[in-house]
């Protein structure tokens, strides 16, 4: 509030707010009853009036918008408000009550402003703030109830991200399998059972021909022929998967009643299982007799623990990320140095065209810097395609702008004293730069560059999310595949790298300041 504006101050010309009210108290109150704040303006309290008018209009406008969204199907405003009261009673009642109080206070305030110089009104502006917070709460869809109730379901997922290391190792798998042929349909001779080799697993199927499951006109399953599938010579007491492979070698695991078909071998490594021949869409060209295969397959983990693919990929991508940050910083430094000379006021103040160049450079730097690297990635990915190179380009662009500004400020901060002193010893121009300028510039340059490298590695962990390569690229894929353990590994690597980098960069910068 403009409590100070009415205080008469020495030689200042009288302001609008000084002098008597334009209207009498009741009229001001009446005007404010119709249009909040206008009565105050007529009482020469234009700042106060505009504040009231502005906040009333915004609050009412926002409320109308939100009620419209709550009750989209209702036609009239009466119905809409009723619906809003039903669906979100707390919000609606709070808002209406608040606006009512605000309105009443505004009328009383307009009356008071014409008569006395007393200001006050802090409480009511607190109410305005509260109303904005209520609106903000509703607009940003804050739902604490949900936050609490959903917590339980989140825990399994979150725990996988927090401790993903079970997925970091795996074992090589070994497959033991045997196949038998089945003819579809039963025409001519059934295929001969495969020859049994001693020491090798063996399966046979009886009968060795039949019909596949099919769909009738109502899309109901017509079960195929039931065959007896027997095997021996497998690993004992081991789960055995049953696979089917059609004449064009498409393999799939047979499902019955929604479950993958599997059987446990007995202690001699033998099994016997009834299998309904599965449904398989055969191409119209595949008329006549076809030879399918049924396979028993035992998959087991063997050998020592080895790093899993997510672990290997995370390490590879983390290295890629650090390198991206390093390359972008290197390119950025090389290009930012010349730019920083153009953006240093003390170097460019020589003539009007260097000054113009200075302003142009500064403006471009400010614009480029205000666009986040995430957006630059989207642009550069259009240019060179998805991948780390796009990320490097984006980071380089942002680095040039950020370092260009920091460097130029370092140049502007150079003390001319030592330069003068070195000159006075009879040093050449080059010696003067080497002994008077460079020692002053190196510490801030090193410090800023290390800081930027730190930022760039951090940035390159997330620009992968939008296609800029690096670890973010696999992180977003794992999240979309709901592979939270693998995502957790990537998150861990990001956290470890950033923490180490943070420490190292702080240590180095400490030395240079």
């Amino acid at each position, binding site marked *: 509030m403009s409590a100070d504006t009415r205080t008469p101050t020495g030689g200042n010309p009288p302001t609008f707010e000084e002098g008597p009210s334009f209207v009498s108290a009741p009229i001001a109150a009446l005007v404010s009853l119709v249009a909040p704040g206008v009565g105050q303006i007529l009482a020469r309290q234009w700042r106060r009036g505009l504040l009231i008018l502005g906040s009333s209009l915004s609050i009412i406008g926002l409320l109308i918008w939100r009620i419209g969204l709550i009750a989209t199907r209702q036609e009239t405003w009466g119905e809409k408000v009723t619906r809003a009261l039903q669906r979100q009673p707390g919000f609606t009642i709070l808002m209406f009550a608040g606006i009512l109080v605000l309105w009443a206070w505004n009328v009383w305030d307009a009356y008071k402003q014409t008569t006395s110089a007393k200001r006050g009104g802090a409480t009511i502006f607190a109410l305005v703030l509260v109303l904005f917070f209520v609106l903000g709460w509703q607009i940003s869809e804050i739902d604490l109830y949900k936050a609490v109730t959903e917590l339980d379901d989140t825990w399994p997922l979150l725990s996988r991200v927090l401790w993903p290391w079970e997925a970091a190792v795996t074992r090589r798998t070994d497959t033991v399998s045997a196949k038998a042929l089945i003819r579809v349909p039963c025409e001519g001779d059934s295929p001969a059972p495969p020859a049994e080799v001693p020491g090798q697993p063996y399966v046979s199927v009886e009968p060795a021909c039949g019909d596949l499951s099919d769909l009738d006109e109502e899309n109901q399953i017509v079960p195929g022929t039931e065959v007896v599938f027997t095997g021996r010579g497998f690993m004992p007491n081991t789960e055995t998967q049953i696979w089917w492979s059609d004449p064009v070698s498409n393999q799939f695991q047979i499902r019955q009643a929604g479950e993958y078909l599997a059987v446990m071998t007995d202690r001699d490594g033998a099994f016997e299982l009834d299998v309904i021949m599965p449904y398989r869409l055969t191409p119209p060209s595949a008329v006549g007799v076809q030879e399918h295969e049924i396979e028993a397959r035992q998959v087991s983990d063997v050998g020592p623990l080895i790093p899993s693919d997510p672990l290997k990929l995370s390490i590879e991508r983390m290295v890629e990320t650090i390198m991206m940050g390093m390359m972008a910083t290197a390119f950025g430094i090389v290009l930012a140095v010349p730019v920083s000379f153009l953006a240093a006021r003390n170097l460019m103040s020589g003539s009007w065209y260097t000054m113009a160049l200075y302003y142009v450079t500064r403006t471009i730097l400010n614009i480029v810097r205000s666009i986040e690297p995430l957006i630059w990635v989207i642009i550069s990915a259009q240019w060179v395609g998805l991948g780390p190179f796009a990320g490097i380009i984006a980071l380089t662009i942002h680095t040039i702008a950020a370092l260009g500004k920091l460097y130029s400020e370092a140049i502007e901060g150079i*003390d001319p*004293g*030592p330069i*003068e*002193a*070195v*000159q*006075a*010893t*009879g*040093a*050449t121009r*080059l*010696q003067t730069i*080497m*002994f*008077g300028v460079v*020692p*002053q510039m*190196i*510490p801030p340059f090193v410090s800023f560059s290390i800081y930027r490298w730190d930022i760039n590695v951090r940035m390159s962990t997330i620009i992968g999310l939008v296609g800029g390569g690096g670890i973010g690229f696999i992180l977003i894929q794992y999240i979309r595949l709901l592979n939270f353990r693998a995502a957790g590994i990537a998150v861990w690597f990001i956290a470890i790298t950033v923490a180490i980098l943070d420490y190292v960069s702080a240590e180095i910068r400490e030395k240079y300041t």
Partner: protein
Amino acid sequence: MLEVKNLTKVYDDGTVALRDVSFTVEDGEFLIIIGLSGSGKSTLLRCINRLVEPTDGQILWDGADVTAAEATDLRKIRRQIGMIFQQFNLVKRSNVVTNVLTGRLGYSNQWHSLLQRFSPDDKAMAMAALRRVGIEDQALKRADELSGGQQQRVGIARALVQEPKMILADEPVASLDPVLAHSILEHLEDLNQNESITILCSLHYLDLVQRYATRVIGLRQGEIVYRGTQAEIQAMTDEEFKDIYGEEAVRVGGGLEGSLGGAA
């Protein structure tokens, strides 16, 4: 011998810093320039080694025309003239001995010096200079770790390794407290008397002027308004001093004043 003839300096913005200034400095003098800030003292000192380009007039250094000297000759003239500054003008982040060694740049091979390589003789000379001003033990510290008085001594050491015939001192003690002021000026007096180095020094304090000067010139608005010999200065009262100097003039103060005044 330094001869300054009709020296005039007008800055680009039209400020006349020096107007037709002429004087001569004999070898071995301790000439003190007094004057208000803005009276042109700093400009005058900087014109002598052309850190500031004079607008008009002539400066002769041992018969050589400083004002007309080309770059190479100018550097040869500059290396014979040491300079110390009010703000010390050390490279704060370099160590002390490197700061002193910059005084040798005018004598060293440009390309060697760019690699920060100095000859063993130069290094020995730098250490000797530091020993002379009593801060040899600080040689490897960063310049900004030193106190103000120590930094100014580094400044003197830097001027000293130039093996100068003359030292220009621009308000060398204005940033220091009175006790340190005497210690710095005593170093300059030592160089003046024992090494026959001519000293050209601008100063603020009357008692320091009386104590150290062999001759004084006073500047006001870029013109010489006072020339005094040692005897004339000793006899000068505070009122006369203030007349040249304006109300800014102060003594270093207190107890020191009497004892030093008596010694002089």
